[in-house]
């Protein structure tokens, strides 16, 4: 494509995008998200051209389905759904699949967990664990209603922190906990400086915390700016100053001086007034609390950080690598890989009322997202997005996928609190598994595996039961099927575990092994061996 031509196309695309988002006729033929997908492919394509890189081919249906199901529903697809999807001849079945996934309860569960982990990264800490169900319930409500992202953040920032009494009682009695964002504040120890660091990182994509202690010669943010921002949280604090350990439930009874907006900088003792990061002064109003002022500034359509940080986070969720990477570290010396694309996504996100599902529909509809991850030859820069990166699964994704592949459990346990965080000593196979597989890597392209994790996957009870001739569910179903030959049985196992049929290149080796029956000459045992291999393969353990 010539440069001129590509500019014209892009102009048309952008025009269409703006028109669509302004137009509100029912049944409009053009889907905004499809247009935005074209914009994505345009900018990413320009990146290939600049670096003389060639994009990978598109992923086949099975690869796409597994990937997008893990990304949106937090687990692999059911094998019956894979068969249906592969047989489906309709041209827009990928878009249809995304639509179905976004409306499934698994989307709500998965997003709740993803955001719980973002908001409460201290999740291993028992105090925070006690609070996590309230946070999850709060998130669940919002993802269930597809709450607009700006509204969600405003609500979190303006959470009433002095509502802990009922929660304390609920926690003490082990009863269900009310949905509340208070856990976010408690997890940050009710300290303005911690809240400042967390909110700027999460919602603005900037790391202020390094400026907490001193000015850095090359960083944009000064120490004074950090504390001016922290002053927006200066009203939040423990009821009794100096008490920091809390009670058994991890609660420090909170106080909130809702209109306070100054803070003393440690060391110098200078008192600074709350000021926005863009240097503007808040126009204090009597009826707006300090945190409400911050929330209004942060989520205003012209905020230079907010929408960019949000779209980048969703991008990083789907690609494993952000346009800004690390996702929460926008600075002058860490520019986005595709700045124009980031701007276009942010604009479209704002124009579509901060609708996360819209954004997901657009990105997953792009060719860029649909590229295969499997390419011969050396790795190129993952930030070119010339192929899909391999992403590690969260402990929850892995457990729920194992459950589905092996049939030992139906995936999501119906827990009203959604209390799914793995706790040592809290019992249950799931909690035990989650504790062993918890992985704090921020970048899912760089997750690591421990020896105990590997041993557990190879020899642990879950795998042993899954491939046992007497105790397995999925395997038994295949073994005992009278109408399948070895090839078909193998196909069925591949569909269960890898969400794809066996490839011709694999069939020869595997069929031969099963026919021979392996070392004991027992083809049932040999099929169990193959199932074990599939469950232990990188292809199963990763999202690719």
């Amino acid at each position, binding site marked *: 494509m010539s440069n001129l031509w590509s500019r014209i196309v892009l102009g048309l695309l952008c025009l269409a995008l703006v028109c669509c988002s302004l137009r509100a006729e029912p049944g409009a033929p053009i889907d905004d998200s499809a247009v935005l997908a074209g914009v994505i492919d345009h900018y990413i394509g320009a990146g290939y051209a600049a670096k003389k890189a060639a994009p990978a081919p598109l992923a086949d249906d099975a690869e796409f389905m597994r990937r997008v199901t893990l990304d949106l529903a937090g687990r692999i697809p059911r094998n019956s759904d894979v068969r249906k999807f592969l047989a489906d001849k309709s041209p827009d079945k990928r878009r249809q699949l995304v639509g179905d996934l976004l409306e499934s309860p698994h989307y709500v569960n998965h997003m709740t967990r993803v955001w719980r982990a973002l908001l409460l990264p201290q999740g291993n800490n028992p105090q925070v664990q006690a609070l996590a169900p309230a946070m999850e319930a709060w998130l669940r409500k919002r993802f269930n209603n597809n709450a607009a992202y700006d509204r969600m953040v405003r609500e979190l920032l303006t959470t009433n922190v002095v509502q802990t009494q009922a929660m304390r009682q609920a926690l003490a009695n082990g009863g269900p906990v009310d949905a509340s964002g208070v856990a976010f504040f408690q997890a940050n120890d009710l300290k303005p400086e911690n809240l400042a660091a967390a909110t700027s990182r999460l919602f603005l994509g900037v790391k202020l915390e390094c400026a907490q202690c001193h000015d850095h010669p090359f960083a944009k943010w000064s120490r004074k700016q950090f504390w001016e921002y922290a002053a927006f949280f200066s009203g939040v604090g423990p009821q009794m100053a100096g008490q920091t*350990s809390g009670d058994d439930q991890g609660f420090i009874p909170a106080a909130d001086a809702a209109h306070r907006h100054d803070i003393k900088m440690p060391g110098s003792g200078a008192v600074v007034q709350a000021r926005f990061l863009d240097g503007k002064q808040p126009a204090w109003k009597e009826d707006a609390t300090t945190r409400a002022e911050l929330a209004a500034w942060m989520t205003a359509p012209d905020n230079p950080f907010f929408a960019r940080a949000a779209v980048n986070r969703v991008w990083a969720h789907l690609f494993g690598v952000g346009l800004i990477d690390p996702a929460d570290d926008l600075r002058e010396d860490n520019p986005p890989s595709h700045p124009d694309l980031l701007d276009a996504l942010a604009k479209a996100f704002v124009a579509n009322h901060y609708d996360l599902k819209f954004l997901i529909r657009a990105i997953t509809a792009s060719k860029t997202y649909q590229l295969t991850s499997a390419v011969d030859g050396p790795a190129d820069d993952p930030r070119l997005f010339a192929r899909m990166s391999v992403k590690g699964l969260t402990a929850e994704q892995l457990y729920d996928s194992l459950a589905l592949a092996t049939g030992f459990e139906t995936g999501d346990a119906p827990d009203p609190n959604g209390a799914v965080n793995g706790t040592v000593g809290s019992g249950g196979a799931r909690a035990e598994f989650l504790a062993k597989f918890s992985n704090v890597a921020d970048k899912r392209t760089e997750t690591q*595996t421990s*020896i105990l994790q590997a041993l557990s996957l190879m020899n642990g009870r879950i795998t042993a039961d899954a491939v046992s001739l007497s105790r397995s569910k999925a395997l038994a179903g295949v073994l005992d099927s009278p109408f399948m030959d070895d090839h078909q049985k193998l196909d069925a196992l591949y569909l269960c575990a890898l969400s794809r049929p066996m490839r011709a290149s694999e069939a020869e080796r595997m069929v031969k092994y099963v026919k021979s029956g392996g070392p004991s000459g027992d083809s049932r045992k040999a099929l169990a*061996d193959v199932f074990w291999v599939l469950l232990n393969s990188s292809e199963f353990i990763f999202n690719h």
Partner: protein
Amino acid sequence: MHHLSRRDWLKLSAAGVVTTSLSGWLGTLAADTAANPQRKRSCILLWMNGGPSQMDTFDLKPGHTNGGPFRAIDTSAPGLRISEHLPNLARHGHRMAVVRGMSTKEADHGRATFVMRTGYNPTGPIQYPGIGSLVSKELGPTDAPLPNCVAIAPYRFFNPAAYGPGFLGPQYAPLIVGDNAQLRQPGQPNQQAEEDYGKLLRVQDVDAPEEVGQAHADARLNLLQEMESDFVGRHPGVAPRSHQTAYDRAVRLMRTTAAKAFNLDEEPSAVRDAYGRSLFGQGCLLARRLVERGVPFVEVTLAGDNGAGWDTHAQNFDVVRLLSQVLDPAWGTLMGDLEVRGLLDSTLIVWMGEFGRTPKINPQQGRDHYPTAWSTVLAGGGIRGGQAVGKTSPDGMEVVERPTSVPDFLATVCLALGIDPLKQNVSNVGRPIRIADKAATPIQEVLA
């Protein structure tokens, strides 16, 4: 020798008889070890879950109302006196430095556990690694047949994150054996109780299930390897490579004879008796076997029968006496064993809990949480033994000499191991974090 009773063994070893008779074959090994300048140091952490009472172990105040009933006894180091319930250990006083000026801030089990084990407060999004992961990253080769960091019978309930590798990632995670095994000790009245301590301390899932059989287990690994080389060839990247490495190391552990380190049945019965037939005693024996095989960091938890044994809010003296009787033979024998093998000079032993206990005795004859003034012990490699550093007031309420903070202490541990405490690792938020906070002042006077 295996028919010797524990009493006989103790008598003999006290008299030096056993040492002499063992030196025939141990001597060579000891000489080899000592002669090898390449030998890296190891660290054994003895973790006292619940917060041990300093006033009844290493900083006694006989005669003071806060002192309690225990007497102090002499150790092999002139002037260094410890509890009468630690007689075996007392023979190794010249290799021990008691840090009596510990002064920390956290009095909550969870937070204090985190701070003592990571050196940092548990705040913000930074996932601080535990000391074991930090140390083993510095000291351990990446291709060793055994894991570089092993945690024996930890009881992690107070703060699971304090035992994790944090931002260093799972490749530096401790291999845990006997997780929460306190609750499954032999004789415990529950369904999961084991009949033998050795079984509790095996590596979980290290063997393929019996029903599979060796031939099929091997066939599986061969099939898997073919499948993996296909996948990794077409999917380069950090995550798949790390996964590959973990599987390689796990398979090596399954197949290597080095994994026999975990088989305590290989030890003569008299040796097992000498360490004490307790979870902690057998754990210390396992620690010795691992250090012998070059594992750079091993920790053993002493947590009593309920997991928080040292949390003696009531009946402090009865409980501390019983725990001392578990601690003493285990630790004392460990010191002796390491010395005989020539490993004591390269093995640092650290004794600590999350905090100390109130000098004042409460109405339940207990002592409560007290971080203001308490004790830890450093022994063996890299340590100038035979001394106490720091001092508490006569009532034990405050540190009057050489107060030692958590960073001070952990920096000292690093230096004793030959590690630069100021070394930085890149954290999960991208910011470099030093192993020990740079404000740390190491206790130079205990370093050899």
